[in-house]
């Protein structure tokens, strides 16, 4: 299987390294045509405003259509913002394929960025997590399964084929979160 990493801007290399550690082949994707033959797509951290401007409308629509066919996607930080159906202070989401509302930079500015460990339902305990000017999930629909919280806020969730996290598992050497996504993609691909 090949897992794609959206490479318009952001921490692309780190996701490629994490997938590599699991022995999973990866491909960086900048255009629609790069999506062919993939088993899943990771939307990395970066600046969500910049990434959304770099992805033109037809690319965003294509990603939305793809997600609706059940194609597995995993968004971290800015990637989560792109996948969320609602963004506080904004009229609409970007790709908008997971029924959550997120608050951008909810953890504050860089001076408040932090690392911690999380217990993640379905993944395990003491998973290291790096939060950088992180968004939080402020509300979610009934079909969304929250998987982890920090300080009373949801920071990871899944709705069928869409997985999102506020934090950066790719900045750590722990591969359990990526392993979970790869497992999810394999399951869906069957």
């Amino acid at each position, binding site marked *: 299987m090949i897992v794609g990493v959206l490479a318009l801007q952001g921490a692309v290399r780190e996701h490629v390294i994490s997938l590599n550690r699991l022995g999973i082949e990866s491909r960086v994707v900048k255009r629609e045509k790069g999506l062919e033959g993939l088993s899943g797509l990771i939307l990395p951290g970066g*600046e969500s405003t910049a990434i959304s401007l770099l992805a033109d409308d037809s690319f965003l629509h294509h990603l939305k259509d793809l997600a609706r066919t059940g194609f597995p996607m995993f968004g971290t930080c800015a990637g989560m913002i792109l996948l969320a159906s609602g963004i506080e202070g904004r009229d609409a989401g970007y790709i908008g394929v997971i029924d959550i509302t997120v608050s951008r930079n909810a953890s504050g*500015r860089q001076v408040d960025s932090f690392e911690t460990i999380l217990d993640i339902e379905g993944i395990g305990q003491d998973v290291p997590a790096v939060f950088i000017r992180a968004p939080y999930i402020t509300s979610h629909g009934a079909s969304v399964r929250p998987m982890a919280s920090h300080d009373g806020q949801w920071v990871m969730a899944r709705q069928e084929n869409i997985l999102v996290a506020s934090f950066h598992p790719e900045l750590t050497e722990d591969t359990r979160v990526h392993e979970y996504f790869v497992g999810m993609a394999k399951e869906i691909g069957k």
Partner: protein
Amino acid sequence: MEKKGTYRVKSGLAEMLKGGVIMDVTTAEQAKIAETAGAVAVMALERVPADIRAQGGVARMADPTKVQEIMAAVTIPVMAKVRIGHFVEAQVLQSLGVDYIDESEVLTPADPDYHVNKWGFTIPFICGARNLGEACRRLAEGAAMIRTKGEPGTGNVIEAVRHMRLMNEQIREVIAAPQEELMTMAKDLGAPYEMLLAIREHGRLPVVNFAAGGIATPADAALMMQLGCDGIFVGSGIFKAEDPATRARAIVEATTHFEDAAKIASVSEGLGEAMSGIAIETIPEHEMMQNRGQ
């Protein structure tokens, strides 16, 4: 339990900026133009390097009011510059809550010998470097991101190219060298031995390295990306150009699609005049910003 200000948290923000463009801005209005054009961060400063060069005088940290106005105007990270060695300006910027501090040769140095001890701060630092020795010294002082210096405010990319090529060459040598040559290499570069070990372990500089100093066109940005930098700083190149908003957007597009010549061609059409630019040979030695803070 939360741990703030760890090196992973500091260098992590730089990782998120990769593949992006960071733009110098002097007002909240310019910051909004930069954000709308797709900048991944803005650098708040009093005067852009071209004006500092033209007007002379002592260039210092920006007025806190201005920095706060810029912070309030955008949701992307805000960086700001301090003079080399001016740790109190850095303390002030940290108290304002800026996201990154640039200890920069663009401003007039405050200390003739020493840089800021950056380990003592929660806020991450970026520093300029012309070669691997400078980069390694700044990292050992606690910098979490590097940029090649180039020659700021010139609109002339040659120095940025020179520094990026030299750094790449030196990194290749460090990686390829037999173990027994490494200590002498550290001595010759003026680089801490441990930093060279880190470079060998990572197969590259262990932090993000942007290009800066003289980038004025989309093709300049793509050139630096093809030479292997992680992202682009544009100082005077945007707001000293005829049509800043369009040029800013074009440089962002060229940075993302840096290997796509047709795309670079299409975004380069009809941009209006770039900043006029200065030949490096015409700059007196004592006015070369890159020689500050080695």
